[in-house]
């Protein structure tokens, strides 16, 4: 199977992007340097092509009830113009995927899923799709780019009183560079910013206009490498690394997305039991010494022996030390506890720290529940 190319492929190559295959898509790992792109997002803003993410349009009178029955968060509380982070679980409570549901109108939703799970998700959703609700995969028709950073808002070329009033996890229909766009204040970096849904044949102009107008202020195009470090610093989970179908939302530290009182949904009975389990596995944050770089799969040990595995690890340029998420067995650890992580066959010390590792500008505009 050849990898898909996004409509911005030629631009990535022209910008010096080093193209790699990711979940069936050819995307830039980096343009100039992961370090520079990462720091640009933390200090100014960066622009990402995330058109690989799956976009599913769910429409119909029964759309709310349908989604309510397949995701963990409370769709009834989601107003038009707002977005909500959600998990989709199996009957046994294992996580099928994490996704963001955008509600455009009472019976019109856009569901953004992980590229790696798109086909699996579509199959699962189709299986449960009732009559009267339609689901269309818009991934190839509509592109998605993310403009993220503490200055993303002020440097947004389409800034207006309309965009100023978009709350965190809110969105509006507008125009960027003369092109119609669905402007959402969402992201995966921990920073303030926008995710822009633009028709595939129009997204190039929007991309160019954001880069052109932000260039002098330090805006850079940013690749997958920077995106992974940014999300990890913000402790945003990566499906396939930090959770999968064998992990439940409470173990992943995402119990806040599970609304057991909203009514029946797939996995509810199992999750109700999981919630009561005190001695459960947990995803914890680890801070390590410069040079001791934890990697996915690295064994985590404590005095009592092997306790778990690193699910994501990297060197944080911004913080200046390596960080990791690790899934560990009970009894649970406290912030300040010391464990060790296998780094190239050596036991390197790691301190349990609070999550997120870094709180960016995103939360400044965050409501309590989203």
């Amino acid at each position: 199977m050849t990898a898909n190319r996004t409509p911005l492929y030629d631009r990535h190559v022209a910008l010096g992007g080093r193209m790699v295959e990711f979940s069936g898509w050819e995307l830039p790992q980096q343009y100039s340097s992961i370090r520079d792109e990462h720091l640009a997002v933390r200090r100014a803003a960066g622009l990402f092509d995330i058109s690989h993410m799956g976009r599913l349009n769910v429409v119909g009178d029964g759309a709310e009830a349908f989604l309510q029955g397949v995701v963990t968060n409370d769709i009834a509380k989601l107003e038009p113009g707002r977005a909500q982070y959600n998990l989709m679980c199996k009957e046994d409570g294992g996580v099928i995927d994490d996704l963001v549901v955008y509600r455009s109108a009472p019976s019109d939703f856009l569901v953004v899923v992980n590229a790696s799970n798109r086909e699996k998700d579509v199959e699962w959703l189709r299986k449960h799709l009732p009559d009267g609700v339609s689901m269309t995969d818009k991934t190839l028709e509509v592109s998605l780019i993310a403009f993220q950073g503490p200055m993303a808002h002020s440097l947004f070329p389409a800034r207006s009183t309309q965009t100023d009033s978009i709350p965190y996890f809110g969105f509006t229909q507008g125009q960027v560079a003369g092109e119609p766009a669905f402007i959402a204040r969402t992201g995966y970096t921990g920073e303030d910013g926008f995710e822009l849904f633009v028709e595939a044949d129009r997204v190039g102009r929007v991309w160019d206009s954001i880069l052109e107008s932000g260039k002098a202020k330090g805006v850079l195009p940013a690749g997958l490498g920077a995106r992974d470090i940014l999300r990890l610093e913000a402790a945003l989970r990566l499906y396939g690394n930090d959770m999968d179908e064998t992990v439940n939302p409470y173990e992943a530290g995402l119990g806040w997305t599970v609304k057991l009182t909203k009514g029946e949904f797939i996995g509810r009975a199992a999750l109700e039991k999981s919630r009561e389990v005190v001695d459960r596995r947990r995803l914890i944050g680890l801070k390590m010494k410069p040079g001791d770089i934890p990697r996915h799969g690295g064994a985590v040990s404590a005095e009592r022996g092997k306790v778990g595995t690193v699910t994501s690890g990297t060197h944080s340029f911004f913080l200046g030390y390596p960080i990791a998420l690790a899934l560990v067995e009970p009894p649970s650890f406290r912030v300040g506890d010391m464990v060790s992580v296998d780094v190239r066959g050596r036991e390197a010390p790691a301190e349990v720290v609070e999550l997120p590792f870094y709180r960016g500008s995103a939360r400044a505009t965050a409501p309590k529940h989203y």
Partner: protein
Amino acid sequence: MAERRYTKTHEWLTVDGKTATVGISEFAQSQLGDVVFLDLPSPGRKIARGESFGVIESVKAASDLYAPVAGTIAAVNDKLTSNPELVNSDPYGEGWILKLQMTGEAPADLMDEATYKKMAEGTSH
């Protein structure tokens, strides 16, 4: 300036009398991505040709470094401790990794620039 020669494992070497300077190639740094840390031995240690003498960590992965020639470590590039990115920005200059006092002659089977480039391009995808 001494001619730069290469190993199959993407180290480079220049020789000045009995002293060899070692680093990693432009191709290697570009494949590794941003270097974040180098785990290097102390001066005085003897290493055999082909021996792993250290580890280079990039954002993506950790990779072993192999000695292109046998010798005693005469110096390591201390600048890399605080500026490991020099390996990316100037792999043949300020990003040199260590200097070896060679035990014997430089091996004759190291590649010249043209041969190495051909090999590197063949392994790239």
